[in-house]
C-alpha cells in the first residue's frame, strides 16, 4: 500500500459539504434507489430534487449554500457537460471550482438496467465526487490582459491589409518591413486579374491607396529596412527587438528629388526590377515607393560623398548608425510572404544560361509601366517584340525530385493565363503557347481560361524536359501528349511559371518567434480547417503566402481573418478556464524539461523563471510527468484530486465485486455520455473519471488504483490531437511498469475514442470487462497452483 503518498494531501477536517441529488423526473430515480443513495452519503447536507436544473431549484441551491454555510457542493445529476456551467453559476458566492458533479444519468441510470447494481454504482460515483471536492481549490478564471498593440511583420498586401484592419479597430500597429519600401510582391506585378471581369487591372492603382492609408493612419507606424532580431514572451505579451538598418538618408528631410541618384557614380543591378535593369547605389526602388525617400545600399556604396554634396535638403548622413528599437506588443501577425523558385536547381530550363528564358515575375516587371521597358513586351536579348512566347507551367512545382517543390503553387495557371491574355490583347501578332500538365483554374477562373482559349492562346499538354539553344534559336523540348508528338518548339521568349516558396524572411522570423513550419517550410497553421490563421504559438497569427501559396484574394481574406483574431484577444477580454499548469517556483530548478516537453508551446522561460501562457496551456499534464522536481501541478486536476477521485470510486467495494476505472479525455467523456443518451448498456463495473488528457496520469495513479481495489484500468482518448504520440508512449510506459511490478498488463487497456463512434466505446467496455475477468482467473489459477505446491 502506498497510501502514505496520498495521505500527505489530506484536507482540513472541517469541510461542510452539501450534496444535491437529482431524480431527473424519473430518468435517474427509476433505476437508482435515491433513498438508499441518500443514506449512503456522508455529508453535512444531502437533499434530493425532482429537477435540479429548473429555475426554482437553482434558487434553492443558492439558499441552502448560504443558510448552511457550505464550503463545497456536489451535484449528483446529469453529465457535467450538459449543466456544470449553470450549477457553477448558482453556487455563488461560493467559488465555482468548489463544485463537483457526479454523472448519475448518462453514465449510470441510462446505461444500466439492474437497479441494485446501478444504485451501488451511483453511490460510488457520488462518493468519489464528495472525496474529490474536499481537495478542490478555489480558482479564478484567467483574464488575459494584453497590450492593445500588435506587430505585423511584412509590408506586402497581406501585412498592409491586416495592419489596416487592426488600426481601424483601435489597435496600435507596427509594420516591420525588411526592404526600404513596403509593397512586397504585389506592388511589383504590373497587372492583376479578377475572375469577374475579363480585363487586367493595374496592381499599383489598387494597392497604392491602401499603402497611403496605412502611411497616414494614426494607429500605424511603418518601420522599413527593419528586421526582427529577438522575441521574448512575457505574460501574454511579446517583447521584440527590431534592428533598423541605416538608410543613410534622413527620412524627415528627404524630398525625393532624385538629385543624389543623378550624381551617384555606382551602378548596380536593380533587384526590385528582377535585375532586368540598373539603378544607382542611392536609390528609390520605384517612383511610388513608400516611404517616399531615397536609400543608400550599404553593400555597394563607395562613400564618395557626392550625394551628400548635391542634396539640397542636407538629408544624406553617411555616418548614420543602425538603430535598435524595442517594442512590446500583445500579438504578432506574420505576413512575411514568399519568393520565386530558384532556377539554379533546374538548370535544364536554362534560366541561368539564356537571357531570353525568364520567370513570370520577370515578365511582370517587363510588362509593368514602371519597369525596364516601360511596359513594352520586348525580348531581352534583341529588344524586339517576340513573335512567339512559350510558357512552361509547373516550373519547380509538383516536382518530387530533390530541391523541387512537391506542392502545386496554386496561382501559376492564373498568372500564365493573365500574362497570355495581356500579350494577346496588346500584341495580337505574338503567338502564345502554354505547355501544361493540368490547367488548374478553379471557380470563376475557368471563365478566364475559356476566354483565353477563344483569344487564340495555344495550349500544349505536356511537361517540357528542357530548353536548349539550337543554332542560335531557343528551343523548348516537349511532347504533345494528346497527339503523341515530340516537339521542338522554336521561340523568342520562354517564360517559366515559377513555384512559390517561403521567403527567407518567413524562415528567419519563424525561427526567432519559435513558430512551427510544415514540411514545405511554410508557416504551419494550428489546424488547417478550423484554425487556419493561428500558428502553434498562442498570440501569433499568420496570413498570406507565408502560410502557403495563394493569390491576392485569398491573402486579403486571410489577413482580415488574422486581424480579427488579434482583435478578439485585445478587444474581447478573453476569459479562460483555469485548468492549466502552475509552476511552484520554490521547487523549480529551471532545468527546462517542461519547456521542451510542452506540445502547445505554452511554457517559456522569462526573466529566470518558468512561466505558463494560460491561453496556450491545455492542461494536458505532459509537463507534470516531465518535471523531475515535481514542481508543476495542473489546477483542478491536482494529484490529490486525482487520488481522491480514485479512492472515492473504489470506496466500499464488496467481496466479489469488480470495479474498473475508465480514465477518459474530453472526447472520450462525450462519447461515454453518448452511450447513455442512446441507452446502450455496458457493465456496471465501469467507473468513468474525466481527465484533461491521458498524459495527465502517472504510473503512481495507476498503481494506487490497482492496489486499492481497481480490477482494471481503461484509458480512452481522441487519437488525432497534438499529444497523441505522447499518449501512446505513456500507455507503453504503463504496461512496462505493470510488468515490472508483477501485475498482468492485460489489466490495462487503451482505446482510441471518436465522439460519433460511441458504440465502439461501449463494445470496448464490454470486451475489457471480460479481459479483466480472464486476467483475474489466470491470477487465481497461478495462486492456487502456488498454494497447492506449498502444501
Amino acid at each position, binding site marked *: 500500500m502506498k497510501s502514505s503518498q496520498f495521505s500527505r494531501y489530506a484536507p482540513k477536517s472541517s469541510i461542510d459539504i452539501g450534496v444535491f441529488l437529482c431524480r431527473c423526473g424519473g430518468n435517474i430515480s427509476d433505476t437508482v434507489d435515491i433513498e438508499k443513495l441518500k443514506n449512503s452519503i456522508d455529508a453535512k447536507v444531502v437533499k434530493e430534487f425532482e429537477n435540479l436544473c429548473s429555475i426554482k431549484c437553482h434558487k434553492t441551491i443558492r439558499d441552502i449554500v448560504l443558510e448552511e454555510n457550505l464550503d463545497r457542493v456536489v451535484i449528483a445529476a446529469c453529465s457535467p457537460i450538459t449543466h456544470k456551467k449553470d450549477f457553477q453559476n448558482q453556487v455563488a458566492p461560493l467559488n465555482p471550482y468548489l463544485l463537483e458533479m457526479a454523472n448519475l444519468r448518462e453514465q449510470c441510470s441510462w446505461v444500466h438496467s439492474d437497479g441494485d447494481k446501478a444504485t451501488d454504482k451511483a453511490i460510488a460515483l457520488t462518493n468519489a465526487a464528495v472525496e474529490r471536492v474536499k481537495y478542490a481549490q478555489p480558482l479564478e478564471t484567467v483574464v488575459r490582459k494584453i497590450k492593445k498593440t500588435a506587430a505585423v511583420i511584412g509590408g506586402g498586401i497581406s501585412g498592409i491589409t491586416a495592419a489596416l484592419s487592426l488600426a481601424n479597430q483601435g489597435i496600435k500597429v507596427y509594420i516591420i518591413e525588411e526592404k526600404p519600401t513596403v509593397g512586397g510582391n504585389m506592388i511589383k506585378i504590373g497587372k492583376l486579374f479578377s475572375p469577374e471581369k475579363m480585363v487586367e487591372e493595374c496592381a499599383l492603382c489598387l494597392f497604392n491607396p491602401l499603402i497611403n492609408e496605412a502611411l497616414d493612419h494614426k494607429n500605424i507606424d511603418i518601420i522599413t529596412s527593419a528586421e526582427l532580431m529577438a522575441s521574448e514572451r512575457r505574460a501574454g505579451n511579446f517583447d521584440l527587438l527590431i534592428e533598423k538598418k541605416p538608410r543613410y538618408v534622413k527620412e524627415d528631410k528627404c524630398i525625393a528629388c532624385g538629385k543624389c541618384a543623378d550624381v551617384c557614380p555606382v551602378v548596380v543591378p536593380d533587384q526590385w526590377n528582377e535585375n532586368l535593369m540598373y539603378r544607382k547605389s542611392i536609390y528609390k526602388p520605384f517612383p511610388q515607393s513608400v516611404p517616399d525617400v531615397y536609400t543608400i545600399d550599404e553593400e555597394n556604396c563607395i562613400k564618395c560623398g557626392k550625394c551628400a554634396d548635391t542634396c539640397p535638403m542636407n538629408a544624406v548622413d553617411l555616418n548614420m548608425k543602425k538603430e535598435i528599437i524595442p517594442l512590446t506588443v500583445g500579438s504578432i501577425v506574420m505576413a512575411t510572404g514568399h519568393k520565386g523558385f530558384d532556377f539554379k536547381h533546374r538548370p535544364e530550363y536554362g534560366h541561368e544560361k539564356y537571357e531570353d528564358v525568364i520567370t513570370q515575375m520577370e515578365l511582370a516587371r517587363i510588362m509593368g509601366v514602371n519597369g525596364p521597358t516601360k511596359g513594352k513586351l520586348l525580348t531581352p536579348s534583341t529588344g524586339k517584340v517576340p513573335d512567339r512566347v512559350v510558357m512552361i507551367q509547373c516550373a519547380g512545382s509538383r*516536382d518530387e*525530385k530533390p530541391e523541387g517543390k512537391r506542392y502545386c503553387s496554386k496561382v501559376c495557371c492564373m498568372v500564365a493565363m493573365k500574362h497570355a491574355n495581356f500579350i494577346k490583347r496588346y500584341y495580337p501578332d505574338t503567338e502564345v503557347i502554354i505547355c501544361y*500538365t493540368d490547367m488548374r483554374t478553379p471557380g470563376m477562373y475557368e471563365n478566364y481560361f475559356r476566354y483565353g482559349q477563344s483569344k487564340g492562346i495555344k495550349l500544349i499538354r*505536356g511537361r517540357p*524536359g528542357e530548353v536548349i539553344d539550337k543554332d542560335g534559336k531557343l528551343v523548348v*523540348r516537349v511532347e504533345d501528349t494528346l497527339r*503523341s508528338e*515530340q516537339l521542338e518548339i522554336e521561340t523568342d521568349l520562354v517564360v517559366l511559371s515559377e513555384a512559390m516558396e517561403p521567403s527567407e524572411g518567413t524562415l528567419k522570423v519563424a525561427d526567432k518567434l519559435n513558430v512551427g513550419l510544415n514540411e514545405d517550410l511554410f508557416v504551419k497553421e494550428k489546424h488547417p480547417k478550423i484554425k487556419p490563421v493561428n500558428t502553434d504559438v498562442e498570440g501569433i497569427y499568420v496570413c498570406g503566402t507565408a502560410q502557403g501559396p495563394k493569390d491576392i484574394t485569398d491573402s486579403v481574406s486571410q489577413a482580415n481573418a488574422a486581424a480579427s483574431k488579434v482583435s478578439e484577444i485585445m478587444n474581447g477580454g478573453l476569459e479562460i478556464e483555469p485548468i492549466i499548469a502552475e509552476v511552484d517556483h520554490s521547487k523549480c530548478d529551471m532545468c527546462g524539461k517542461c519547456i521542451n516537453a510542452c506540445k502547445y508551446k505554452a511554457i517559456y522561460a522569462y526573466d529566470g523563471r518558468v512561466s505558463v501562457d494560460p491561453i496556450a496551456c491545455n492542461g494536458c499534464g505532459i509537463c507534470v510527468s516531465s518535471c523531475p522536481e515535481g514542481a508543476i501541478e495542473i489546477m483542478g486536476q491536482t494529484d490529490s484530486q486525482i487520488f481522491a477521485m480514485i479512492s472515492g470510486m473504489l470506496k466500499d467495494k464488496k467481496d466479489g465485486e469488480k470495479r474498473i476505472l475508465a480514465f477518459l479525455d474530453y472526447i472520450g467523456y462525450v462519447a461515454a455520455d453518448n452511450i447513455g443518451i442512446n441507452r446502450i448498456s455496458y457493465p456496471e463495473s465501469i467507473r468513468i473519471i474525466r481527465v484533461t488528457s491521458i498524459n495527465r496520469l502517472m504510473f503512481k495513479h495507476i498503481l494506487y488504483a490497482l492496489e486499492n481495489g481497481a480490477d482494471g484500468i481503461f484509458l480512452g482518448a481522441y487519437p488525432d490531437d497534438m499529444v497523441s504520440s505522447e499518449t501512446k508512449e505513456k500507455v507503453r510506459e504503463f504496461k512496462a511498469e505493470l510488468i515490472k511490478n508483477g501485475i498482468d498488463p492485460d489489466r490495462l487497456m487503451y482505446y482510441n475514442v471518436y465522439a460519433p463512434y460511441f458504440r465502439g466505446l461501449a463494445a470496448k467496455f464490454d470486451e475489457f470487462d471480460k479481459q479483466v475477468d480472464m486476467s483475474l482467473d489466470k491470477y487465481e489459477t497461478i495462486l492456487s497452483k502456488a498454494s497447492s505446491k506449498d502444501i
Partner: protein
Amino acid sequence: MDIMEFKTIKIGKNNNKLTDSIIKDLKTSKDIGVLKCIQCGMCTSVCPASRHSEYDSREISKRVLEEDESLIYDDIIWNCFYCYTCHSVCPVGNSVSEIIQVLRQKAIINEEFEQIVTFLAFGESLLELGIGSIPIEYYSELIEVIGNDYPEFKNKLDEIREELGLGSLNLPDEDVKDIGNILEKTGFKDRLEKIRAYKKSINSEQ
C-alpha cells in the same frame, strides 16, 4: 462499326498484375512512382531513343498502366539504352528505364531471345573471365565509331594499368571459378545455354 467494350474491374481480383509485378520487382527502386504517372510527357521530351526512333517513354509507362502484356513481346522495349535521363527528370519519381529492365527480363523468361541474342557475347565473357568485358565481336564497330585510338588503347591497357599500379585486369582463376559457380547456381548458365541454342537454330535457318 466498332463497339467499345468496357473492361470490368472485378472486386477481389488483382486487376493490376503487370503494374504490381513491376513495382515489386527487385530491379525497380523501392519507391518507384509507376502509379503516380500522370502522362505529362517530360520523359519523352528528353529521351534520345524517343527522338531518334518510334520509341516513346511516356507510351511505355501508359501501356504498363493499361496492363498491356503484349509490351513484353514488343520489340520497342529494346530501343531504350539505359541513359536514365527519363529517370532523372520524372517529377513523380517514376522510371521508364527501370520499367524497361523488368519488361526485358520478362521477355527473356518467356524465351523471347530474338533481341537478347546479340548480347550473348557479354554473358560468355562473364562466364569465361568473370567480368563483363566488351566482346571481340564488337571491336570493328567500336573502331568505326571511336577510330584507331581504340585498338591502341586496348593494346596498351595492361601497360597503362601497370603504370598506374592497378594490376592485371584479369581476375585470378579461383575467383573466375567462384563466379562461375554463382552463375551456375543462379541459373545464368542454363539461360545462356538456351540462348546459345536459339542462336544456333536461327543460324541454321539462314
